[in-house]
């Protein structure tokens, strides 16, 4: 039996909208419209979709904050809506844009509160804290008030706080948003390690496709409250025909590069040129081909934007939404 299990789960909100001075109109919004999936223990799954697609509504139902309108939902055998506090002991949650740490107090004080609030046995708390401090490099930061931490440091601190009670499931909402490259890499490395050595099940929502690429073997795409795709990331690229970008810095301004097979010229700006190639293809032969034929200074590969992939995948749907919002 899967560890996280959703069976035609629905969440319908009734929105009251003013249409006149007094008149109100009731409208049903199907935020989650019959979603079914299962996640096995120890899986690391990306849960992606455009804003307003139903991602956070799903997470809120999985944590027991929201009661589903219909369908069946189980996490670790627990019905989240019924036993919210019991489930809280089994799950950890990290919001990229909202810290749960105590702003004015040293980092370690927040951990001490978690220790007591989750009633973590002393030995286990020590062990978990030591491990997190070690792996997330928090030693120097424990005595620093949270308000003085950088965004990346705070995110690491937040992740540690969510793991002290040994949760079986970790929900991460945009864990790398706003972080610099080094911090991003560090967070990802930690999560990968957590998943492999600890077997923690991870559900990750993100706008950064690199997060998914580097962490998740499986990705689920949700749009309009429905599950549109469930499978490997590579498959998503194939379906969405998404492209990656090769940014090439040449020695000088040159005519557009059109002689490299498999690459399509997009635009240029002085000596810099942008080339698109299928996301499923490897960048290596392409780089070699460009380097062989042109005076190359520097280059980088840009991952396709997740919104762009999904937009491409479902063509008109996003436009429709935009119109319906107007």
């Amino acid at each position, binding site marked *: 039996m899967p560890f996280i299990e959703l069976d035609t789960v629905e969440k319908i*909100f*009734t929105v009251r909208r003013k249409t006149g001075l007094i008149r109100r109109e009731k409208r049903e919004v199907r935020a989650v419209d019959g979603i079914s999936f299962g996640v096995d223990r120890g899986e690391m799954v990306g849960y992606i979709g455009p804003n307003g697609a139903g991602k956070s*509504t799903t997470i*809120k139902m999985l*944590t*027991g*904050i*929201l*009661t589903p*309108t219909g369908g069946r939902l189980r996490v670790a055998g627990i019905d989240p*809506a019924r036993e*919210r*506090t*019991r489930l*809280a*002991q089994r*799950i950890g*949650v990290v*919001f990229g844009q*909202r810290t*749960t740490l*105590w*702003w*004015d*107090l040293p980092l370690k*004080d927040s951990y001490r*509160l978690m220790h*007591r*609030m*989750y*009633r973590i046995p002393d030995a286990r708390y020590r062990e978990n804290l030591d491990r997190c401090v070690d792996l997330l490099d928090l030693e120097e930061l424990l005595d620093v*008030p949270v308000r003085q931490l950088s965004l990346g440091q705070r995110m690491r601190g937040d992740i540690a706080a969510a793991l002290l009670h040994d949760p079986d499931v970790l929900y991460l909402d945009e864990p790398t948003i706003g972080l610099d490259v080094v911090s991003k890499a560090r967070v990802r490395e930690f999560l990968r390690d957590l998943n492999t050595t600890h077997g923690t099940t991870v559900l990750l929502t993100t706008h950064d496709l690199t997060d998914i690429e580097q962490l998740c073997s499986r990705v689920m795409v949700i749009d309009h409250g429905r599950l549109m795709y469930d499978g490997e990331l590579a498959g998503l690229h194939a379906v969405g025909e998404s492209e990656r970008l090769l940014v090439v810095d040449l020695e000088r301004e040159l005519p557009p590069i059109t002689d490299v097979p498999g690459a399509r010229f997009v635009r240029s700006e002085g000596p810099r040129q942008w080339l698109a190639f299928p996301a499923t293809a490897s960048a290596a032969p392409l780089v070699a081909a460009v380097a062989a034929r042109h005076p190359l200074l520097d280059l980088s590969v840009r991952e396709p934007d997740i919104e762009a992939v999904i937009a491409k995948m479902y063509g008109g749907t996003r436009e429709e939404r935009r119109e319906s919002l107007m």
Partner: protein
Amino acid sequence: MADSLRTYRMVAGMWIRSTMTYRASFALTVFTSFCVTFFDFVVILLMFGQVRGLGGFSFAEVALLYGLTGTSFGIADLTMGSLQRMGKRVRDGSLDTFLMRPAPLLAQVAADKFALRRFGRVAQGLMVLVWALVLLDVAWTPVKVLLLPMTVVCGAVIFAAVMVLGASTLFWMQDAAEVTNSFTYGGNTLLQYPPTIFAQELVRGVVYVVPLAFVNWLPALHILGRPAPAGMPDAAAFASPLVAAVCCAVAGLAWRAGIRSYRSTGS
């Protein structure tokens, strides 16, 4: 209940430590909080500088009313005052973080932003109460003596229940927080004065509809040997614990309904 108290202690402790990181500001807030309530009483002193009695009540009698409601309200405000700021938590979604923790929500929200400076109000209420007791010329009986602490405790519970009730409505209407102030701060102001000066409809409302009269009016009038207002029997002076219990039950039901609504609408 034990779980709630434990949670409350933990979270309040964190906030006290947070405040202590800004020591200068903290000292200033404790001082001003005391002064705010002190000036509140100065108004009554100024009034009595101009008149000998208010609604047939002497200064000492008004001071007794003031001290009782002031102390009760102070205790409720100290422990539950943060509830009125819950609307912000609902609006910006940070209430969700509380709901994800294995601890009772009410305790977490009530202890949120716990401010020790609000103790200034309790201290001021107690001082006025003691002053009133020194000035008053009352034939004290054991029953009347016991009635005093009971009144303070029950009054605090009634105010606290009103605050919880008010916070419950925030699950539906986050912008209506100010209405609660009418009953808490407004109630406290009302109860500082003798019931004789108010319109009878208002007094009846405070006795039978929103039973704030049980915070101090009914017990205090009994202690002062005056008739109970709005046709209440004299024995009503001892009904505060019962009224407090009913208020708690109503507030508890409203709170549950509020959470249920929040969890189904998520707004």
